[in-house]
């Protein structure tokens, strides 16, 4: 693994939440390297810090200590404004609950992500290709309430990719989907990874879902406890 191809390098990352008087350690020293173009699955019990790790990589919240170098820049040293800038272009989030804006159509949900990142309102050719891949082109003028869960999640993926982020962070993207839709979304993520070289990090509770990834890491009590290489335990 050459240095240049490492897109995420995390060293001794700690995160403590302060809830009133109580300190809740969510991450207790995470070390992780992710290669450019990798499809990584993160698994682990509830409360082990998976989402927290993603939120830090994606710049939604600052780390308490340690270093988190994403695409050459250390998130730990960024100001709030710099992390906001980073969210525009470096990362795209996909959540379990789709998180589409309910008052906008699917198309406008995608367009507003582009507007926030100050991209041109025209969708470029690459993105058209992504829409083809997602198979939702004909559903774009509906509001989320008129779409199935699977369709909503595909719109959310399209929205996450519209600014061509270096990294796609998917937090239990199939958690709310039935097996047929889960399969479709997972196949899609793998296609995006294989065909377009999109770097993807995905949290899942489901071993079958994790199997779509190139590599699986396990988390427990705020640490990464083992590395797997495709062969599942």
């Amino acid at each position: 693994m050459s240095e240049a191809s490492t897109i995420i390098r995390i060293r001794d990352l700690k995160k403590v939440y302060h809830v009133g008087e109580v300190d809740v350690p969510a991450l207790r020293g995470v070390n992780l390297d992710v290669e450019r173009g990798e499809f990584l699955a993160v698994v682990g019990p509830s409360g082990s810090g998976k989402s927290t790790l993603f939120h830090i990589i994606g710049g939604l919240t600052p780390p308490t200590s340690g270093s988190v170098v994403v695409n050459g820049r250390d998130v730990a040293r960024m100001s709030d404004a710099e992390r906001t800038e980073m969210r525009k272009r470096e990362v795209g989030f996909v959540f379990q609950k789709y998180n589409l804006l309910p008052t906008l159509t699917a198309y406008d949900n995608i367009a507003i992500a582009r507007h926030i990142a100050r991209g041109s309102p025209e969708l470029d050719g690459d993105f058209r290709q992504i829409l083809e891949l997602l198979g939702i082109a004909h559903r774009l003028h509906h509001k989320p309430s008129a779409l199935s869960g699977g369709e909503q999640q595909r719109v959310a993926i399209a929205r996450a990719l519209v600014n061509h982020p270096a990294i796609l962070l998917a937090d239990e993207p199939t958690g709310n989907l039935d097996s047929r839709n889960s399969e479709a979304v997972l196949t899609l993520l793998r296609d995006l990874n294989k065909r377009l070289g999109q770097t993807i990090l995905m949290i899942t509770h489901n071993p079958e879902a994790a199997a779509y990834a190139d590599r699986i890491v396990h988390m427990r009590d705020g640490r990464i406890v083992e590395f797997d290489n495709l062969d599942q335990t």
Partner: protein
Amino acid sequence: MLNKLVLENLKHRPVRTALSILAIGVEVTMMLTVVGLSEGMLEDSARRARGAGADIWVRPPGSAVIGLSSAPMPEKILEFFRKQPHVVIATGSVAHPIGGVNTVTGLDFEEFSRMCGGFKFLEGGPFQGPDDIIVDERYARQENIRVGQTIRIMNRDWYVRGVVEPGKLARLIVPLRTLQELTGNTGKLTQAYLKLDDPANTQKVIDSLKAQLKDYQIYSIEEFTSLFSVSNVPGLRAFIHVIIGLSVVVGFLVVFLSLYTAVLERTREVGILKSLGASPAYILNILLRETALLTLAGSLLGIVLSFGTRWAVMTFIPASLTQKTVPEWWPIATGIALAGALIGAAYPGWKAARQDAIEALAYE
């Protein structure tokens, strides 16, 4: 794009949006109505003063231009005026307030008619006895009065002898002698009017009168009517400011509440936007646009409603109140409403802009 989101958000909660617009509409109408009434009534008074046809107005020393004069001058002074060069007609009146904004005016009907060019009777005719009263059409309409009726004013019955076209000094006219005696002003006047051979001589006559009558208030009709302004009515400006202040508070509270609930309700959406890289300024921008749109829609409604209040005033109480349409106040009232609304939006906007993205996304 942002405008689309703002519009969709407003459409998403039609009742809240409609109520906010209505509240701002009422706010703007309140402002336009109070200003329109003030200016309308002052203008109407000035118009009626002009309708008297006098070139020069004389008031006794120490009396206020608008309001009640309690320092009458002797009736004999008219003889003095008549002897002055260029003076063709000199006549006087006594005015007595009857509650609200109306006054009864006692006139020498013959002489006053000559000066003002004659009353136009819509019904009935001139005085025939000391207990006769002539009212203008607006008062007749408001109070539902017809010729031949007896009406009670100042604890006394009056026989309605005529209804005249409005615009000649007074709405309620009674014989001068009767009112003088009733108000204990026998032989006295509260106001005198001079008509000259040629209005061009006005200044000359005024200068000469001023030299002879110390302390008397002597005005050309232009000077006199120019005194009918908001700043010359004691307390009126303060009153207008109080009403405007109250309406701004209403607008502020409505926008505050409406946006506050909107922000709570959209906590999750704010989190989504932030996860997409929206800055606090971006979030604030959305809410301020929403506020501005609500205020503009509300102001438009308020302007329309102010025509409604004007119609109501002119239909139901035309003699008591006159409301003017005040287009120059449309942008001012809109601006004031906007300022109040933006202040109301400040706290909810700040709250939303500062909202922690992760907590917002976890919000159910």
